């Protein structure tokens, strides 16, 4: 695979729930070494898109490719093993376990064959990177909210993903915590050469950190482009503020 190929690509991805078209004809791609923002008002279909590309929902129509390979209909486990790892909006961590064991689960997923040492090394390295080393033996559920978010991201980072999909990782964090996580995102992109798909409501952060943004509205792609382009887009502004527009 060359650098120009998309890591992940969707082709007319569609998901229907009863009468509701949650995601409709979505074409989207994630390229190597980029942070892609996926934004849109409440109910725009972001969560469904996330569930579709991570295999938790099966698409009603359309196709999903990872690294050029058709993976439509694969299970979440299979998709994860191809390098796409996601987090969940409401805490993707094991609250009853220590931070060390939380990260270990990620390491086990990444290194199914290795025993002992390589996994411990992966845990230590991930902890260092997320500045969690001091908390390795704490029960994750006892940690303050910001650190719990870091643990969630840490589990995914420990798997060494090629595409890291984060569902609202910044909710409820204070400004300095947000800044720290944004630095981490950049280092994942620049040092690991991985890509990030970011669903986030903190628009300021999205505008700061993303290379490219896709805007969803009523399950469809409303706009895509650089943060600057999106910030100027009339259709996007009206979608957010609820004004009428006739973009389609």
């Amino acid at each position: 695979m060359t650098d120009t190929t998309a890591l992940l690509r969707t082709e007319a991805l569609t998901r229907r729930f009863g009468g509701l078209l949650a995601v409709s004809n979505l074409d989207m791609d994630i390229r190597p070494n980029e942070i892609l923002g996926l934004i849109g008002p409440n109910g725009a279909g972001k969560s469904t898109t996330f569930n579709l590309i991570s295999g938790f929902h099966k698409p009603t129509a359309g196709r999903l490719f990872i690294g050029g390979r058709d993976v439509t209909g694969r299970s979440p486990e299979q998709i994860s093993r191809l390098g796409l790892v996601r987090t969940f909006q409401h805490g993707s961590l094991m609250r009853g376990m220590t931070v060390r064991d939380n990260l270990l689960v990620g390491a086990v997923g990444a290194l199914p064959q290795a025993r002992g040492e390589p996994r411990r090394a992966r845990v230590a390295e991930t902890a260092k990177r997320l500045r969690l080393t001091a908390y390795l033996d704490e029960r994750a559920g006892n940690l303050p909210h910001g650190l719990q978010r870091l643990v969630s991201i840490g589990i995914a980072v420990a798997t060494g993903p090629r595409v890291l999909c984060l569902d609202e990782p910044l909710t409820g964090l204070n400004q300095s915590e947000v800044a720290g996580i944004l630095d981490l995102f950049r280092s994942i992109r620049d040092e690991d050469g991985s890509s990030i798909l970011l669903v986030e409501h903190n628009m300021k952060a999205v505008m700061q950190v993303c290379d490219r943004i896709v805007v969803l509205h009523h399950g469809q792609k409303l706009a895509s482009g650089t943060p600057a382009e999106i910030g100027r887009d009339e259709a996007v502004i009206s979608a957010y503020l609820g004004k009428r527009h006739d973009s389609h």
Partner: protein
Amino acid sequence: MTPTELSLEITDLSVNFGVVPALRGVSLALRKGRIATIIGANGAGKSTIMKAVCGLVKPRGGSVSLFGKPVTGLPADEIVVRGLSLVPEGRRLFGSMTIRENLELGAYRRKDRLRVGEDFARVLDYFPALRDRLSTPVGSLSGGQQQMVAVGRALMSAPRILLLDEPTIGLAPAVVDDIAGIVRTIGRSGVDVLLVEQNAEVALSIADYGYILENGSIVAEDESTALARSETVQRAYLGI
């Protein structure tokens, strides 16, 4: 302003989910005869305010009072009896039951059967589309019709205060207009309305005044016309 002019008063309300703070000392008030709105982005804590007021979520601190009487910590069914009704986010209708049954359940605790009949007729006047389908299970209705049933069900308890949580979400523009019109009518009929909306334009066009919620705290409060012009709204939604 004397307390008697307030139908609903929330003082310094805090709610945590586990260790996660969802609301941090929120204070707001609903004035008699007016429509208020809380607007803010996803995850700001709008629904949590609604749930805490209705008794579905136990607050960590602060108080809620209705017509000057504290109701903090009462179970949800007792709050309804005291004159407050919520149209919950996602409607939460009883899907396998008919429109008629859903509406009847709204009046479960009422003793004034005669008035219940009148209210039933009034709800059907508000939403004529429901009239011909009273025996249809609500699960098979369209989103807009379901929202009508949800609003109608809440009105059947003859509330003096009506809370609406994201009533226009996922609805087609024409239906959004219908719902907005009905909410204004309800407000004029003597019910005090508190509206939570993600769609700021619709919210501010319905409400007399509004609050902006960011990250669990109220950051601004003003008349709707002023809010509609303000930079704060833009910032709350777009972060620009």
